[in-house]
């Protein structure tokens, strides 16, 4: 048992301990180890420094390192808790944890609120929703007239902004989302429940490989 532990520690040197990460998240230790394989592959794709840069994240998500995207930027920023412009392994696992089917609803509600609060003011302003809507339309190559966009925003804010102050605060968001549960669909990735079997395209290194380092 002692030998196994030191081998695992060697592999994870410089990164957070998988056992600790498993205890903080919905992932099992072997799932955290599987995530480490993914993390290694993403974090070494542009610069092999054990950290995921914005460019590497874009490369992994879109298979195109130059592709900038408003929503991907938001997700990256939320994973990058220490605001270093880089995601370390702990950030990666804790970030993905929120999307796990077993993660608490409250965590998902909080994450989605912060996701849409583009400038981090603690409120989702109408202008921010407009910006996101326009970004979505560009992405899907759909065109809508400005007045149509405004009427969609009107309709949304009538429902979500109960005190009608032009912005959605945290508690308004909580109520809005409980009435429209489909809005949280994006916050759950069902396949995270079983990543070790769902993604066979991972290459799992055997312990033998790691001894060489």
């Amino acid at each position, binding site marked *: 048992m002692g030998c196994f532990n030191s081998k695992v520690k060697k592999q994870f040197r410089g990164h957070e301990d998988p056992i600790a990460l498993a205890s903080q998240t919905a992932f099992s230790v072997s799932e955290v180890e599987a995530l480490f394989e993914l993390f290694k592959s993403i974090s070494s794709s542009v610069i092999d420094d054990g950290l995921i840069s914005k460019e590497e994240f874009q490369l992994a998500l879109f298979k195109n390192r130059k592709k900038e995207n408003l929503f991907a930027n938001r997700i990256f920023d939320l994973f990058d808790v220490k605001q270093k412009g880089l995601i370390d392994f702990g950030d990666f696992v804790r970030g993905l944890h929120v999307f796990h089917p077993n993660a608490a609803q409250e965590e998902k509600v909080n994450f989605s609120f912060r996701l849409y609060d583009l400038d981090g003011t603690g409120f989702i302003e109408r202008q921010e929703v407009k910006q996101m*809507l326009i970004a979505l339309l560009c992405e899907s190559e759909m065109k809508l007239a400005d007045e*149509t966009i405004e009427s969609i925003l009107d309709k949304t804010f009538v429902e979500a902004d109960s005190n009608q102050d032009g912005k959605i605060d945290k508690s308004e968001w909580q109520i809005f989302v409980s009435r429209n549960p489909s809005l949280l669909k994006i916050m759950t*990735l069902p396949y995270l429940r079983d990543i070790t079997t769902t993604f066979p395209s991972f290459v799992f290194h055997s312990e033998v490989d790691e001894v060489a380092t």
Partner: protein
Amino acid sequence: MTCAWAESRKRRRITIPEILKDEWFKKDYKPPHFEKDDDVNLDDIDAIFNGSDDHLVTESKEKPASVNAFELISRSKSFNLENLFEKQALVKKETQFTSRSPANEIISKIEETARPLGFSVQKKNYKMKLQGDRTGRKGQLAVATEVFEVAPSLHLVELRKTGGDTLEFHKAHSSLNFSNNLDILRNLNSHLLIGP
């Protein structure tokens, strides 16, 4: 049958769809079973179609469901973190377009186009299930369609592949897309790419 296979002139060589129909071939033939996509949640579609329809007088909704800004925003493909786990870019399994036609007209048009292409159509309110009759590369093509209201007289039509090959889905989609305001009816036969 062997002569038909051996026919060297490509024009006259038997095609795979023809083989699949041939009596000799069909004897003792068990078509391969393709797994339905696990990651597509069909609960909402199934719920509509499995619901008790015993009474003939069904209350039909006047208008399709309306979408708010966040529902639209959440359709961004950048929320599909599944891509992080895949080596190649995932081919989208859904597509959408907007239309200014009234919702019930959109539904009828899709149905009118889909049936001659060999799809069986099930519909309820503003949701439809289309099932292809030809066996393509990964079983029968199945498409779930839903019409939403985005703004007065502007509708969003979503087509989601729920079974079959994704490339065939994209080809079928161009036949079902009315955003150019003209029915572009293409024979689905020519779209089925049966590889070796």
